[in-house]
């Protein structure tokens, strides 16, 4: 494998594999391939890994990694990771999942939809059409449990954050901040413009895979009515 990566420490118990320093699809694909390999090759002493836009960080226990002090732990983990990177090419590409997220736009669920429309001199329907037209890529999950960093929103509806953040944003809220869009999986303070809400649970601690979305997923937003929202919300809560 070519040297398209750089390794550096995150303290004494973490190592970062960096594949570049800009957000783009090729780097994202590379990270997807690498985490797929990692998933199958977590060695003793590796605790967990966190993919991001251009990096994958691996946490390890230096004591275990050094075989109780016999080797240098950072050298040991670096060597292991380089081996994984080297053998990676043979692995097949991950197939992206397609996920639809139903959203009830505007009204009490999307109190800022009118502001976003007014900001761009668009109608409410036009904003919804643009937001539901795009296909979004989940680059990474972070910030709060299950929160997706999405790429792919149209600049036509990019809107600055609110001047002062709300103290509490309800779970499931769909928002816009600059050219970013995303869904709040849990109740949290935040400054995004809220355009709608989904009845889906994006984070469920009872499940094996607690985050509905994973890095690499492709998602679409689908507009639903308030009645549909209420109905789906009930089903979802029963399940929970």
């Amino acid at each position: 494998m070519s040297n398209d990566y750089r390794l550096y420490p995150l303290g004494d118990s973490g190592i970062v594999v960096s594949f570049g320093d800009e957000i783009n699809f090729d780097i994202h694909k590379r990270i997807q391939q690498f985490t797929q390999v990692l998933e199958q090759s977590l060695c003793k002493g590796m605790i967990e890994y966190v993919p991001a836009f251009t990096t994958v960080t691996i946490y390890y226990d230096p004591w275990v990694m050094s075989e109780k002090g016999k080797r240098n732990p950072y050298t040991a983990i670096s060597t292991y990771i380089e081996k994984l990177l080297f053998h990676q090419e043979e692995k097949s590409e991950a197939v992206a999942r397609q996920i639809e997220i139903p959203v009830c736009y505007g009204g009490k669920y999307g109190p800022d939809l009118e502001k976003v429309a007014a900001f761009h001199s668009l109608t409410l329907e036009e904003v919804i059409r643009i937001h539901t037209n795009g296909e979004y890529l989940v680059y990474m999950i972070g910030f709060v449990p299950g929160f997706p960093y999405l790429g792919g929103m149209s600049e036509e509806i990019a809107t600055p954050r609110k001047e002062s953040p709300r103290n509490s944003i309800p779970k499931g809220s769909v928002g816009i901040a600059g050219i970013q869009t995303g869904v709040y999986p849990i109740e949290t303070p935040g400054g995004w413009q809220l355009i709608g809400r989904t009845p889906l649970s994006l984070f469920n601690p009872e499940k094996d895979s607690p985050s509905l979305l994973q890095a690499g997923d492709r998602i679409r937003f689908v507009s639903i009515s308030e009645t549909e929202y209420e109905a789906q919300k009930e089903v979802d809560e029963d399940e929970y």
Partner: protein
Amino acid sequence: MSIKVIRPGLLTTIQDIGRHGYQKDGMIVSGAMDKVALRIANLLVGNQENRPVIEITLMGPKIEFQQDALIALTGGDLSPTVNDEAVKMWRPLYVKKGSVLQFGVPTLGCRSYLSVSGAFNVPAIMGSTSTSLRARIGGLHGKALQSGDEILTHPPTEIGEVIIKKLLKKQTGRSFQQAFWTIHPKLLPSYETPIIRAMKGAEFDWFIEESQQHFFQQEFDVTPQSDRMGYRLKGKKLVLGEEKELLSSAVTFGTIQVPKEGQPIVLLADHQTTGGYPRIGQVATADFSALAQVSPGKKVSFQAISLDEAQHLYMEQEKKINHIKRALRMKI
């Protein structure tokens, strides 16, 4: 079998070593702020190291034992008493049913750990019993303990029973009985020093030379806006050489980030999984306990060490814990 919370104190939560394996899902790790104290609290009552304990912050709770119990208190010294009589830390302590544990003024550190032999009986969620206040899961209903809460406990472990038998041999007619022995202070984390050892962070070079020097020379105030998520520090402003955008990537316990206003934040147990501010430093794992015991209002400073030194200190710490385990086995 249970304990009853009569008064909750400032921030009293159930914690273990943390919720690992789900950071890729954005899940906060949480867990004890002072993990060495957590592990030793468990070992002292014959538990596995990673059983749930109660983390007590600055102003302690008032707790009543609904049955006889073998407990231990470790970490910061918050002047604990049982039935109004001072008790010693870092040793097994047998309390009779109806005994009341309370705390007074913090004399060293700011976080104590209460373990009970057999451990508290709370469900594990995503592999951990740790309370994550922000995600509202773990511990007792994802919340800090409140007045009237009752926490179930498992019966004492086999080793716990042996310790109880030994303690009861020296029965003095008091409502509690504590061991005469304790762990050698050399094997315990030191809470005396506010000098925290840290490695340079990945973006250390982004800061102007003067700020790089300030970072390792000045004393920072730990501001009252500090919590389990992070300590907000205040000192001379740290300045970037040029405005550069950093993409969000993983951050961890001990990561020292510098937001735009130039005042660093040290991330702690409830840290978010990713961050986008330049990382000027990273605290050595071996100093997490000392760091976790610095209370708001106090000062800290950072001393530069290399990765090799930090990993060496980490392994020395693990050796000490192994030493404690061996010593306890012999004692019991």
